[in-house]
């Protein structure tokens, strides 16, 4: 167990009104494994990821990495433990893939952010691992969606953290890029001993590639465990409240049953 949550409750606070979305979570994220967070729209996937990346405070409970409580760490210490890939589009011009990936080295560089030889090697290695090194000098604006996502993953990889968290990394991709990205994340987790957590709406690819699942049910419960076990327990049936939308274990996907 690497990252653990202890009686974690996440949700919104709007002035004095507190709206918990997911309560009493005791989850663990393991190194060397790909974990997929599944749930319907509005289930609280992004809210949970925000709490884990410390972008927002949990309503209750705590999160630890190893023995350290993440809320007690400085921003710089956290930046060496968790790398993030969000759905935000990078709109700024004049940024090459190599520039972008090099920004991932910031937690390791000095006051002015100059790259050492070691940093440059880490940037090269990250680009080669995700297979974007041939586009190193291309501008981000000129890349396809799939290539852009690869560059963002390379940036997270260059950050050299034990944990990588991705918010819907396959959302804007076509099927081929989706499969490629999931395969890449699976390989990164296994070959580089990283704990990779991603949220997704792509149930079938998640079931194929993820070692563990965090599954948010229609009732706001979170079921976690190894993927085969959850399929066995028919846990996926609890994802949606619609009686006509059924999970088909052969297809590894949902389908309409009249």
């Amino acid at each position: 167990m690497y990252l653990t949550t202890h009686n974690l409750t996440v949700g919104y606070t709007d002035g004095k009104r507190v709206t918990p979305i997911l309560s009493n979570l005791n989850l663990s994220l393991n190194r060397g494994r790909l974990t997929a967070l599944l749930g319907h729209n509005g289930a609280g996937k992004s809210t949970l990821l925000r709490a884990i990346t410390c972008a927002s405070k949990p309503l209750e409970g705590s999160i630890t990495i190893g023995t350290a409580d993440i809320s007690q760490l400085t921003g710089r210490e956290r930046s060496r433990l968790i790398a993030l890939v969000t759905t935000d589009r990078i709109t700024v011009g004049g940024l090459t893939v190599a520039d972008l990936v090099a920004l991932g080295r910031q937690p390791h560089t000095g006051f002015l952010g100059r790259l050492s030889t070691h940093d440059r090697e880490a940037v090269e290695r990250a680009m080669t691992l995700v297979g974007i090194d041939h586009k190193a000098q291309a501008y981000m604006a000129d890349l396809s969606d799939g290539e852009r996502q690869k560059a963002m993953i390379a940036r997270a990889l260059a950050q050299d953290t034990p944990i990588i968290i991705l918010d819907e990394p396959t959302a804007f991709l076509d099927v081929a890029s989706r499969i490629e990205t999931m395969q890449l994340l699976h390989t990164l987790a296994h070959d580089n001993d990283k704990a990779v957590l991603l949220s997704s709406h792509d149930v079938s690819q998640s079931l194929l590639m993820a070692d563990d699942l965090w599954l948010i049910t229609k009732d706001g419960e979170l079921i976690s465990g190894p993927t085969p076990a959850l399929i066995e327990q028919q846990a996926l049936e609890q994802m949606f409240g619609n009686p006509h939308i059924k999970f088909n274990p052969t297809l590894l996907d949902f389908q309409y049953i009249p």
Partner: protein
Amino acid sequence: MKPDNKSKVRFWIVMGILTALLMVLAVACLLYGSVDIPARDVFSIIAGNGHENVAWDIIIRQSRLPMIATAALAGAALSVSGLLLQTTFNNPLAGPSILGVSAGAGLGVAVVMLATGGTVSTLLGTAVGSYVTTLIGALIGAGAVLAILIAFSAIVRNSTMLLIVGILVSYLASSIISLLNSVASEEGIHSYVTWGFGNFSGVTVAQMPVFGACIIASLIAAILMVKPLNALLLGTRYAENLGVNTHRTRNVLLIVTGILTAVVTAFCGPIGFLGLVVPHVARFMTATSNHARLIPTTILAGACVALLCTLISVNGTHGIIPINAITPIIGVPIIIYIIVREKIHS
């Protein structure tokens, strides 16, 4: 050659060209003006040899030299201020004038100039107290507008809306200034109107140390912020994930921006367009978003553009042309080009 080195070489070539251009423009501003002084005499005066024509000596030493220094510093200051605002608000059309920061500083100046009934007459006055009061007025005005922008940027995430807020703030400031005008003395109005045209000849030799020190200190502060500035290119969530304290960074950046804009506005008037346009010129020349290269390029390019404006302004046939009559002619085509290009790219 490795591609990474190619962009480094490009950066140093750009810096070389801009430095040479800066020298040429500075010499041109020394040689050409409303009074014709032969080049040989100009250089002899610069070299420190007195000249029998006392008027020429005064023109070169008390007028042209400080004007060149003022223009170069002001151009660099406004341009870096624009660059910092564009990165902070993640908006290519941000700049000190369009976001109302200059107008805020202007309002501060107007309050000092008009409300004190002309006793603190003009910046051109030599009394030390007068320009310090004006400067404080400008700093308070610019600071107030930046506070409004921070508050609004937390509510409206849309960057176009923030520009509109900036424009509205400018309107509000000019409306308050008009109201102040109606109760001010004629002398106060006159000095305010002259200030509003914008000119780089308002900083005297005595005031230069304060003007220069404020700007150079702020420019150094901006250079020291290179690392968080680069992280902010990816937006606040990524910047925070990279270990940047975005709140503190943003506050420091806005304070630096406020000082740069306020100091220039207090001494030179509200100069439009420079701050918005020059960072784009720098990006175009260096083909990068890396602030370690953009800030030095922006400083030199800003100084060059301001000197070019000065050169044009002092060579009118009927006296000095206001700087604010020249900057839009250079600025507007570039802004329209940026908007059209953004449209094509998105």
